């Protein structure tokens, strides 16, 4: 590539290799964070982390690139120091949504095609080994090959993501910027999560330690589901295990878990609490959805637990020998 990304781009995408190079070339030492002139960076990083972990919101503030690069670095170090898996997952998800927001906006607004192509190359190809191209013959839409699309789109349940509802031609799926970025959300999340997990810092600067400790004290400890696990069918057990680890469960798994718990006699409040460990937990939204499933909102229809055959198709079935003869998880453990 004959052009390079601008510094403003690095501020938005601080996980790119060029950002790392910039920090290395600035001969910066981690101990420098203990100096008073870096206090505002640490305070900004604290705000960014608190936004994600305590308020469950995306930090959308954007400063000059050097401030952003260091804030990002400090945030990661703080998360490494906090060292709680559920918190790291939550932070990674909120950061992924921040990146998503910038990327959608850049792909929409950038008029320079070369620059736009470079951004696509840097994010999609270099980071995620996904070939995405702009097609000038088709309104400059983004195109990716069908199998790459399917491997990502099948994680969504909405009918709009079904291949039939996409513009498909000659082996390619055509998408707009929003849709293209949405497809890689979970990959951005994993990239950030792994970045924190794989960090190797021998000595965390005292100033960062101090602020991270304060944040850690404010965190609600993750709920452990103590009920005897063998009571549940393996599909439900698996979903609970993942929630315990603050994994981001797909919509279909959340639907299965909520309908199962409601059908087993749990109250809406109890079911809402179950989702408290989800990295994107929002009590208001969760309550609305659970009430909807319980038939207390909308069409007043009480939703049933999906059949085992449906769960097999959705890759949510973890059948064991104890599942023999059942066609719905709700039958598990009953005499057949």
């Amino acid at each position: 590539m004959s052009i390079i990304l601008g510094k403003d781009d690095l501020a938005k995408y601080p996980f790119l290799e060029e950002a790392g190079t910039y920090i290395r070339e600035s001969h910066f030492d981690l101990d420098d964070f203990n100096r008073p002139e870096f206090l505002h960076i640490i305070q900004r990083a604290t705000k960014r982390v608190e936004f994600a972990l305590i308020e469950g919101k995306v930090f959308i503030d954007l400063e000059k690139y050097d401030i952003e690069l260091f804030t990002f670095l400090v945030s990661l170090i703080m998360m490494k120091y906090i060292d709680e898996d559920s918190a790291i997952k939550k932070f990674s998800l909120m950061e992924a949504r921040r990146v998503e927001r910038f990327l959608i906006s850049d792909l929409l607004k950038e008029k320079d095609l070369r620059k736009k192509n470079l951004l696509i190359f840097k994010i999609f190809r270099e980071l995620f080994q996904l070939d995405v191209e702009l097609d000038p013959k088709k309104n400059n839409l983004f195109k990716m090959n069908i199998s790459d699309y399917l491997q990502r789109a099948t994680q969504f349940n909405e009918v709009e993501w079904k291949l039939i509802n996409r513009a498909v031609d000659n082996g390619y799926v055509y998408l707009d910027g929003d849709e293209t970025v949405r497809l890689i959300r979970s990959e951005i999340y994993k990239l950030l999560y792994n970045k924190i997990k794989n960090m190797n810092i021998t000595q965390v600067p005292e100033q960062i330690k101090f602020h991270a400790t304060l944040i850690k004290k404010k965190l609600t400890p993750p709920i452990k589901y103590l009920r005897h696990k063998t009571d549940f069918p393996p599909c439900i057990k698996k979903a609970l295990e993942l929630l315990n680890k603050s994994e981001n469960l797909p919509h279909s798994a959340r639907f299965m878990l909520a309908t199962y718990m409601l059908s087993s006699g749990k109250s809406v409040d109890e079911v809402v609490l179950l989702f408290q460990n989800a990295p994107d937990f929002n009590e208001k939204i969760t309550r609305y959805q659970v009430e909807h499933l319980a038939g207390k909102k909308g069409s007043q229809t009480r939703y049933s637990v999906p059949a085992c055959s449906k769960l097999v198709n959705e890759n949510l079935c973890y059948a064991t020998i104890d599942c023999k003869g059942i066609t719905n998880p709700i039958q598990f453990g009953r005499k057949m």
Partner: protein
Amino acid sequence: MQKEINSKNKEFLIRLFKEYYFKNIGNLSPPVQMHNREFGFMTFDGKVIRHLAFPKIGNLKAFIIQNVPSDIFCSNAYYQFPTFPINEKCWKGADLIFDIDLNDILLPCQKEHTFFICSNCSFVSNDFLTLCHECHSTRILKNTIPCFKCINSLKKETKNLLEFLKKDFGIQEQNLEVSFSGNTGFHVVVLQSNYLLLDSKSRSDIVGYLMGKNLSPDSLGVRNDKRGDRIKVPLSGFSYGWRKRIVEKMKMPEVSNDHLNKFIKKIGGYQSFKNELDKIAYELGLKLDPQVTTDIHRIFRMIGSLNGKSGLSKIVCYDIDKFDPMNDSCFFENDRNVDISINTPLKFNIKGKKYTLDKSISTVPVSVAVFLISKRLANLANYSS
């Protein structure tokens, strides 16, 4: 092979199948990466043997000549350890396969040549049976002798599938393998590496696309919400894929939002449009067996092997228009005759000859006997090797 065949018929079929494999063993071509495939067989006693592997085609051929199975299968999947139990095989990918079968294409003529056969007493009826009228057994088989219309419909559907795969999926002709299943269908295999790693869910989405399932009015720019119908021509246009098919079929204007808006109003708004869309999607959608495509651990009939349900061979079709399944896939000769007893009057063509058999003992060439006995529509009356 369908379960429980009487010993005289079984002995006859084993002898003839052995003869076929002896003379035509070269028809069995090794699948790509043979050492990573699981093989399975069905015996003439109806038993299924799975989880076998053959590193070379020679080993497989020797096994077949020695054991003479009624059916030979090979996995569409590639495994690190093909002989291990299914969860331990280490899946490495699977060919993308489509199955077009008469069972999925509902034709009015099928009733005339579909038979319900009691596997206990061989009673045959043209009417749908769940219980045998003669012996009250519930073990009923359904068999069809495809007529010209059926075969032409299968060919038409197969050609439609190839068209979809080439135009929409960009798969080149040389990467598509079409074969006759040896009974009542055609198989299409995509030999293109970028589809190998797709999981069951992705394959299900592909098959849904081909069958025209879940087509949403939104994708054609027609939405409905609290504010009523909202029309906006999609940025990606109407000029390809399903959108093109629908626009052409419904003669929809694609120029502007105004034109599209008028069109939707004219046909009665969102709901009427959706109803029409569902109807057209079903009509233009392919009639496929979705289970076959979504199963990434399936064992599949091997090319060059005989189909135990018909005695015809599964064979590659290089020119589908010229292909005549009842001739090109029948490898038994007409040089010997045998006596068979027919359980119901039958009309069919095989090896270029038309047969009309009534409900009695008939002397027919070996090719006809193998076909009808495999279909469970006849029993051997008198045969010596």
